[in-house]
């Protein structure tokens, strides 16, 4: 005889220590088990797509930093390559290399934060998070040296990058690349075999491959379910076809696999960085373009492999100096499509872990 229980409507509300920003989940909870959960969006909806229609192409660049504020370089890259494809601007060789270096550094920073906050939700009192943060501070130093800012860089322009690398950038990057693999091994020893981590994340929140494809997930969430789809390999943009690296994929598609895929991607990014630093040529870094330049009329969709997944910019121009319509394909929003199916049936503690393993950034979800 089942005990009659009365469900509670619980708000894992906008202000909650582990919702990675202002994301809200209205959960109908029966004791500990979640019977139904409804994500509520819009607490950080700043109407960036509407603002884009009132700004010139160049004035929109600082806004792209604030989309996924942990992947500011990749947002810039996605937007700038889209407009370059539309207007046919070519980029000097050195600028392409600099863009790849910056994009990979940004991917390492974002994965470090993603993994760190995944373990924060699991309860380790900020310790692995701060170890990863020490590494992130080193990378932030490098990016601040290049662009002058620590988090939102506004570094890339149409036709290249705004400033050249200072001369002590490459040696500093080399020392970082030499010591980073040892750090990653340390994190592995700290967390990879930890029994409590295995108990909490193995076979939890499984996203089956066909459900992943059907719910248009992308990035580490899609690859953890075993589908080998990475834009840098499938549709190489910029000069990614010159570097050799491989795409880590998971097998089961549970929280543990998502964590493992992100750690492996750290190693692959280091491999790319080493090759890029070795091959960077001399030369100018920017083909200047007027402040209010007018791309030809037309429509373009260009995508890159951002940290959270496929970040696409659909730019529609009517020949004037302001974009007519600019749609941003946000990987974090689409990774959340299957959230309800992944969470129902699990307990609240698991819901936090599964949500943390998807690693969204609310700035990109709500735009």
């Amino acid at each position, binding site marked *: 005889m089942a005990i009659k229980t009365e469900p509670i409507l619980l708000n894992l509300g906008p202000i909650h*220590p582990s919702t990675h920003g*202002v994301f809200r989940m*209205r959960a109908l909870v029966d004791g500990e088990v979640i019977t139904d959960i409804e994500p509520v969006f819009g607490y950080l909806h*700043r109407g*960036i797509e509407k*603002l884009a229609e009132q700004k010139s192409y160049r004035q929109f660049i600082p806004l792209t930093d604030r989309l996924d504020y942990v992947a500011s370089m990749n947002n810039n890259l996605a937007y700038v390559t889209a407009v370059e494809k539309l207007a046919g601007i070519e980029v000097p060789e050195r600028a392409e290399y600099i863009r790849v270096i910056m994009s990979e550094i940004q991917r390492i920073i974002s994965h470090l934060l993603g993994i760190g906050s995944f373990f924060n939700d699991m309860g380790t009192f900020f310790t692995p*998070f701060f170890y990863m943060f020490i590494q992130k501070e080193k990378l932030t130093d490098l990016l601040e040296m290049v662009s002058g800012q*620590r988090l939102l860089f506004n570094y890339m322009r149409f036709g290249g990058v705004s400033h050249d690398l200072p001369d002590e950038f490459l040696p500093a990057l080399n020392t970082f690349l030499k010591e980073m693999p040892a750090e990653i091994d340390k994190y592995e020893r700290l967390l990879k075999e930890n029994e409590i981590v295995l108990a909490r994340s193995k076979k939890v929140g499984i996203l089956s491959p066909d459900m992943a494809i059907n719910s248009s997930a992308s990035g580490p969430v899609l690859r953890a379910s075993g589908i080998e789809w990475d834009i840098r390999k499938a549709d190489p943009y910029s000069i990614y076809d010159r570097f050799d690296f491989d795409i880590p994929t998971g097998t089961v598609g549970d929280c543990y696999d998502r964590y493992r895929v992100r750690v492996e991607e750290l190693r692959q990014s280091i491999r790319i960085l080493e090759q890029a630093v070795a091959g960077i040529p001399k030369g100018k870094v920017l083909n200047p373009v007027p402040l209010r330049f007018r791309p030809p009329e037309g429509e373009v969709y260009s995508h890159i492999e951002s940290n959270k997944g496929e970040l696409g910019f659909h730019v529609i121009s009517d020949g004037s100096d302001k974009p007519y319509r600019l749609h941003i394909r946000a990987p974090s929003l689409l990774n959340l499509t299957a959230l309800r199916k992944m969470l129902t049936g699990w307990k609240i503690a698991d819901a936090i872990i599964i949500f943390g393993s998807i690693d969204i950034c609310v*700035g990109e979800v709500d735009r």
Partner: protein
Amino acid sequence: MEIRTDSTSLDIDRHEGNLIKELRSSSTKPVTEPSGWLSEDLKRNIFLTTVDNVLNWGRKSSLWTETAFTACCTFEFISLSSSRFDIARFGMEVLRSSPRHADLIITAGTLTWKMAPQIKRVYEQMAEPKWVIAMGACGITGGIFADSYSVVPGYNRILPIDVYIPGCPPRPEALLAGIELLRKKVEKRSFLQG
């Protein structure tokens, strides 16, 4: 309205929508900053008793922040509490997520009208001696999103602000300077003010 489990999610949304509309129509002018103490110092420098000094010292050196972080400035606050710019030295690394225990709100991020009632409710729930730091351009005047249809142009529309920190995002040291300024303000608080 009592939100019961059987009420459909649509009318919960509608109820919250009305809250937002009320707040939006009522908060059109910025709330004046509690900066009375600045001028008071010049007029008649109030005599701080030793009890005041001890209390203020206690409050100053254990400010607990509320985790009401919204957007990008969050990561500058986290790097502030991380190993390099460690804020635990000022006794502030205790992040209490319940408003009852916290006594400082740092507005790390853009405030949208949909989020405004939540932030206002959290501020009202906080126990009395409480302060607010407006961090970053979005906190001060809405920053780059000031003229968007869904963004509150500056936290001072709904909260009285004690310290403004420009920057987008302000560096961790700028945040530390802001906190130093706030600690000076807490020191000068007299018991009479309650």
